[in-house]
């Protein structure tokens, strides 16, 4: 019972405490002025924030004081600007005057003042957003651009200069996040360039007084840019096309002039100048043909060729009155040799001595002439050429000594380099000289005109350098000189005497020949035409004197005697005369000439001169010239056939 009584006051106390909290009142909380703003610098509005109301209805009042005045005024308009605001109209607004504003919250229990705020209207201007924002697409030479235009907010008086607004706009492409802002200053229009073709743009504008706050952004204006082709790219494309065109032109010109350019940059290497060397053949890659062209057909002698290769030497038969004939013959033969060669007209190619007329034209006894010949020979690249050159040189020395008084008065002295056909001791060693000469060369057999046989200083050739003969059987016809006719046993020495110094006028051979008066020439031997081999080579063989001797033993075993040239017919054929009878000349020794009626057609005898000349040989002392018959040669001392025999290729 007492416990229940003691708990009741406690419960009552709790109940009252509870109730007391619910019905507690307090004076209002402190309001707070949030901001004051003037849109046009003629009016302004202040907003405040109310505090707690204390549970009781609270009223708010705004009071202000002007600068340097103690008068307190209350807000004239609480409603125009909305809740918890105070609007100052034009009459109540003074510019450049400091307002001291205070808000008071009042309720039944009390009031509360807010903190005062000093406001000068000039510095709280925040205009409205610009109006009539229009964006248009304009065309320019560089492309389209946007023209944004707007108007100042309606209430801002910029016309009288009372307020000065500066504007700012921002642009962005639809879908982007970043805005592109531009200051427009005081102008009410702005151009935007460098647009993306076909893009959708968003534009906004705002403004600010020279001393104040920025307005809010205007509502977004959408604009679409039409499709266009950017000018910058087109300019670059034009430049690229133009430069490419120029480049192609230059390349084409360079290509055209490539040869000259190549000639300048890479001078051509001088090619070989070998007579008979065909560069085209070489380029074609057929070296066999190239080298075959250089090969003289008859050299090296093949098996199919005649067994007796002809080593042509220029044998000159020296007879006083028939000298011209001989020479004529020789010339014809030379010409024949020339023609038969059929070599290309390469001036610096080597030629055989019998080939060129020019060779005959050169001065005699001059090494240079010989040098030239030597060079020509060398160009041929044949050993035999060189070899013969050596011979010639060697022979020249001999000849110069020995040849007596060539008739220099007659035209030019001709050097006949190939005259020297060394054939010393041939009889003894006909085959030993094979190695030297490998090709059947065309040597114009020439026999120098010797002085009377008494002059034993005939040209004697180095036996070692005898004519290099081809393989085996070679035939050459030597003028056998019998120095000692009275010595038949003496081994005839075959000497091919160089006809180095001989006056032959190539201009007019006939005349020269006719006028040529060789000194007392005593031919020592006769050459007999042995036969004509397959290759149209007149094979001569010396005739033994015995053949001319009546009582001698004719050692001619083969063939016939074609030692006498009857003439050259119209067909440029050398007509050899076979002489059956042996004539005897009064001047010199016996002379044997066998009339040969056979015609020897040789291609090399195609000479222009159609002089009928007879080659007569000078009889050598036939007596007692017995010569051992050689295998290849049968030499008879019948006479000489002065001819140039060229082997036909």
């Amino acid at each position, binding site marked *: 019972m007492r416990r229940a009584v003691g708990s009741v006051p406690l419960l009552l106390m709790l109940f009252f405490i509870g109730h007391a909290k619910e019905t507690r009142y307090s004076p209002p909380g402190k309001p707070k002025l949030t901001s004051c703003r003037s849109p046009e610098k003629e009016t302004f509005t202040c907003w405040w924030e109310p505090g707690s109301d204390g549970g009781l209805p609270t009223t708010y009042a705004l009071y202000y004081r002007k600068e*340097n005045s103690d008068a307190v005024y209350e807000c004239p308009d609480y409603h125009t600007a909305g809740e918890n605001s105070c609007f100052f109209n*034009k009459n109540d607004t003074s510019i*450049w005057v400091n307002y001291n504003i205070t808000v008071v919250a009042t309720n039944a229990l009390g009031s509360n003042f807010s903190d005062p705020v000093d406001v000068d209207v000039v510095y709280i201007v925040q205009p409205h957003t610009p109006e009539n924002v229009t964006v248009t697409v304009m065309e320019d030479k560089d492309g389209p651009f946007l023209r944004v235009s707007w108007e100042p907010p309606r209430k801002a008086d910029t016309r009288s*200069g*009372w307020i000065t607004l500066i504007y700012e706009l921002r642009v962005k492409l639809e879908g982007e996040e970043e805005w592109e802002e531009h200051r427009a200053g005081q102008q009410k229009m702005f151009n935007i360039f460098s647009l993306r073709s076909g893009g959708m743009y968003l534009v906004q504008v705002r403004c600010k007084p020279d001393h104040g706050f920025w307005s809010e952004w205007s509502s977004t204006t959408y604009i679409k840019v039409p499709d266009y082709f950017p000018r910058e790219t087109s300019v670059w494309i034009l430049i690229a096309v133009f430069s490419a065109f120029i480049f192609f032109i230059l390349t084409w010109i360079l290509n055209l002039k490539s040869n*000259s*350019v190549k000639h300048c940059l890479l001078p051509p290497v001088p090619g070989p100048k070998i007579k008979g060397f065909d560069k085209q053949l070489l380029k074609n890659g057929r070296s066999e043909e190239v080298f075959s062209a250089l090969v003289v057909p008859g050299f090296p002698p093949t098996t199919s060729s005649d067994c007796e290769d002809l080593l042509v030497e220029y044998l000159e038969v020296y007879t006083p009155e028939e000298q011209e004939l001989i020479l004529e013959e020789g010339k014809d033969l030379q010409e024949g040799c020339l023609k038969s060669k059929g070599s290309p007209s390469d001036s610096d190619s080597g030629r055989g001595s019998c080939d060129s007329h020019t060779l005959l034209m050169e001065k005699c006894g001059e090494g240079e002439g010989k040098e030239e010949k030597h060079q020509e020979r060398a160009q041929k690249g044949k050993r035999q050429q060189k070899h013969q050159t050596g011979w010639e040189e060697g022979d020249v020395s001999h000849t110069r000594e020995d040849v007596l008084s060539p008739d220099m008065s007659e035209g030019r002295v001709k050097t006949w380099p190939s005259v020297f056909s060394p054939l010393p001791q041939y009889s003894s060693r006909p085959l030993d000289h094979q190695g030297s000469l490998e090709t059947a060369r065309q040597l114009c057999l020439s026999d120098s005109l010797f002085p009377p046989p008494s002059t034993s200083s005939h040209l004697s050739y180095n036996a070692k350098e005898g004519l290099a003969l081809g393989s085996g059987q070679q035939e050459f016809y030597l003028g056998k000189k019998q120095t000692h006719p009275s010595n038949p046993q003496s081994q005839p020495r075959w000497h091919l005497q160089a006809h180095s110094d001989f006056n032959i006028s190539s201009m007019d051979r006939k005349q020269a020949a006719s006028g040529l008066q060789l000194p007392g020439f005593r031919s020592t031997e006769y050459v007999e035409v042995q036969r004509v081999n397959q290759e149209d080579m007149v094979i001569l063989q010396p005739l033994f004197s015995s053949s001319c001797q009546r009582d001698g033993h004719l050692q001619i075993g083969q063939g016939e005697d074609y030692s006498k040239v009857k003439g050259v017919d119209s067909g440029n054929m050398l007509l050899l005369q076979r002489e059956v009878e042996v004539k005897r000349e009064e001047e010199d020794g016996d002379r044997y000439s066998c009339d040969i009626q056979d015609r020897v057609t040789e291609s090399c005898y195609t000479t222009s001169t159609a002089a009928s000349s007879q080659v007569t040989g000078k009889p050598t002392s036939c007596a007692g010239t017995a010569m051992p018959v050689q295998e290849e040669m049968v030499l008879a001392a019948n006479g000489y056939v002065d001819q140039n025999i060229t082997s036909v290729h």
Partner: protein
Amino acid sequence: LPSSFLCVTVSAVWVGLVCLLFYSRLVRVGAAPICTNGQAGCHILSLADLFDRVIQHSARMHGISSDLHSEFEQYFFPSKNHIGRVNRICHTSTILTPNGKENAQRLAREELTEVILKLLVAWRDPLWHFQQSIAHHHDFNNFSSNKALEMSDMVHELRKGVEKVAEKMQMLGIISNSVNSLTSPEALIPSDRAEWRLMKDYVLLYCFRRDSNKVQNYLKILKCRIIPQHEC
């Protein structure tokens, strides 16, 4: 050599292309110089140009004064409450100045010009002394002292500029000739010259900031009233 010829041709072509490319950008229009005395070869400053220059000057002046005022307020008066109770009495409060748009538009051009000149004249000496005191104070950095010096000079220049504008206007017959007589500093400055000497620097800056704004605004109103088509 054809190769060298080609090289020369190619290089010449490229040089020509480059030159053509840049030629279009090299064309520029030259601006005629500005002269004040009507010399030959330059165009005479018009009234609009003079106004623009003066207004630019005043704008700059006002900007400097605002900067200095903020600097002062930041370092010397952190408490706002303290600011509220300071009695800011400017020595130029005796000069009647319109404090509203209508009031300013109600004034005649000559009166408006006079007000501007009065203000500018009134501030020449105080600013000069202010600049002197700042230069000797170690509290201020060089930047502030330079600004104060520039401000002082600018007031002087601005006054001369406005006087030129007034002369121009009088020459053009826009305003009457009564303005010049007011330029005497003795007549404008209040008799109690010691008043401004007591002003503290902060109050001085506060007052000058406001007065420079007034000058700028009055000049704009004057300009838009006289030359309405030019940026008004």
